């Protein structure tokens, strides 16, 4: 165990020494890795925020349940109790009088409403479902339609479906982009390690001749790759965080214009840690491939 730890600590020190030995090269590599990871990460943040924007914008992901014109207080109470029981999310009641008042407050509608002999609007419930997946929304709408004295259930499912499809395409594009840039990261590390191996080929040859195992040869390079990748991941997180900070105010203003109440959020600490881990794993992979190829060649 002691030998194991000693060798790993020595390999880590060696990796740090190599990173510090050529600061310019290290910085350039970190920039390349950082940008490669920042692009899909930024895309992911954008998609995540879009999902939140739509969630906060009024009228979207709501189901309006309109009662029949002849529905009485007893029928309204029945629906209330069913809603309490079903617990689909937040919901509130809009009486026909309140609905009329809202219309009357609208400049365009005031005149038309005033000319009507009686209030044509029904009582209604507005439900904001907790589960906003399109299938779940449709299922809820179907359930509500079957309830007594419910005349009409309105769900803008087409819009939600379109948006969901857009998000899915976005996710797929981000995943493809991430795969592409992950390969680039592996390639960058592979090449960096290859150059290091070429520079240290004499040392590797001697070490092998006097009893070094392949694991001993690989270890410092693997740590180097992982460390470089992790630092690249943190650099990517820094870029994305800076970008989201710069965009917070203008995006907030834009969403307000559409009646939403939204604050742009960047990467969480978990996201940042994940980026560092992904960077480390990809860097390790690049190093592993590079050393394995070299060892196979001299083997």
């Amino acid at each position, binding site marked *: 165990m002691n030998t194991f730890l000693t060798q790993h600590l020595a390999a880590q020190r060696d990796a740090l020494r190599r990173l510090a030995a050529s600061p310019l090269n290290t910085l350039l590599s970190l920039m390349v890795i950082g940008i490669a990871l920042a692009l899909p990460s930024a895309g992911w943040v954008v998609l995540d925020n879009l999902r939140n924007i739509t969630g906060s914008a009024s009228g979207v992901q709501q189901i309006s349940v309109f009662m029949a014109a002849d529905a009485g207080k007893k029928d309204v109470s029945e629906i209330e109790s069913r809603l309490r029981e079903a617990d689909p999310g937040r919901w509130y009641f809009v009486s026909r009088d309140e609905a009329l008042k809202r219309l009357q407050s609208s400049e365009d509608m005031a005149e038309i409403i005033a000319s009507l002999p009686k209030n044509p609007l029904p009582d209604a419930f507005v439900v904001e479902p907790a589960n906003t997946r399109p299938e779940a929304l449709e299922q809820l709408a179907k359930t509500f339609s079957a309830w007594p004295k419910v005349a009409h259930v309105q769900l803008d499912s087409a819009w939600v479906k379109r948006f969901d499809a857009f998000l899915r395409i976005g996710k797929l594009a981000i995943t493809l982009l991430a795969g592409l840039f992950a390969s680039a990261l592996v390639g960058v590390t592979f090449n960096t390690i290859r150059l290091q191996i070429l520079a240290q080929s004499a*040392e590797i040859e001697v070490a092998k001749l*006097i009893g070094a195992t392949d694991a001993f040869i690989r270890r410092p390079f693997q740590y180097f790759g992982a460390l470089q990748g992790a630092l690249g991941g943190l650099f990517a997180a820094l870029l994305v965080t800076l970008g989201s900070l710069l965009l917070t105010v203008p995006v907030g203003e834009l969403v307000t214009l559409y009646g939403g109440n939204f604050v742009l959020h960047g990467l969480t600490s978990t996201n940042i840690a994940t980026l560092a881990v992904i960077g480390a794993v990809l860097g390790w992979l690049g190093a592993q491939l590079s050393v394995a190829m070299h060892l196979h060649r001299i*083997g």
Partner: protein
Amino acid sequence: MISASTVTKRYPEGLEALKEVSFEINAGEMVFITGHSGAGKSTLFRLLAAIERPTSGSIVVNGQNLAALRKSAVPYLRRNFGLIFQDQKLLFDRSVLDNVLLPLAIVGLPAKEAVRRARAALDKVGLLEREKAHPIALSGGEQQRLAIARAVVNRPAILLADEPAANLDAESAADILEIFRAFHQVGVTLVIATHDPQWIAHASPRVLRLDRGRLLADSMDAAA
């Protein structure tokens, strides 16, 4: 300790570097392998160090048949040897001390203990005062002594050397021989490939004479 039985080494281009060579070396012996250039000395050195494998026959070291050894077991076997190469294979971008520390890092010795042992090895070969120098700043004889220090730092039971006096002046070669004798006296088994007749005359050890790949004579057999 070392047993070679009808060892043949044939290279893919057809050259037969060793032909059915057999010998036994006991623990604590000092054996010179000699012969003209191309006799097969270096090939035998590489086979004994498990750098290459025999085409046929067997080499058994400490009960392990090198010809049948798994590739992954070779590094662990080599740690039992101290290897001194004809071209020394020193690391010129590392200090003298760091060169000697390399075998200790490979076995995972803690840093403090490793430095202590590396300095002791350098002291044995008279290079302690040059520990911070780089090999390029050393004379040929000093470089060879550094190679010996690196070979013995892990306290191997067997020391294998390939032409350790090559390119050295007479005085340096004599120094190196004295160092080998000192290791021999403390029980280390030495197998030294050399073509230097003066060395062999001075040392009067057991001699295996090779000629064009064949074992021509074993001085132990002659004595018997």
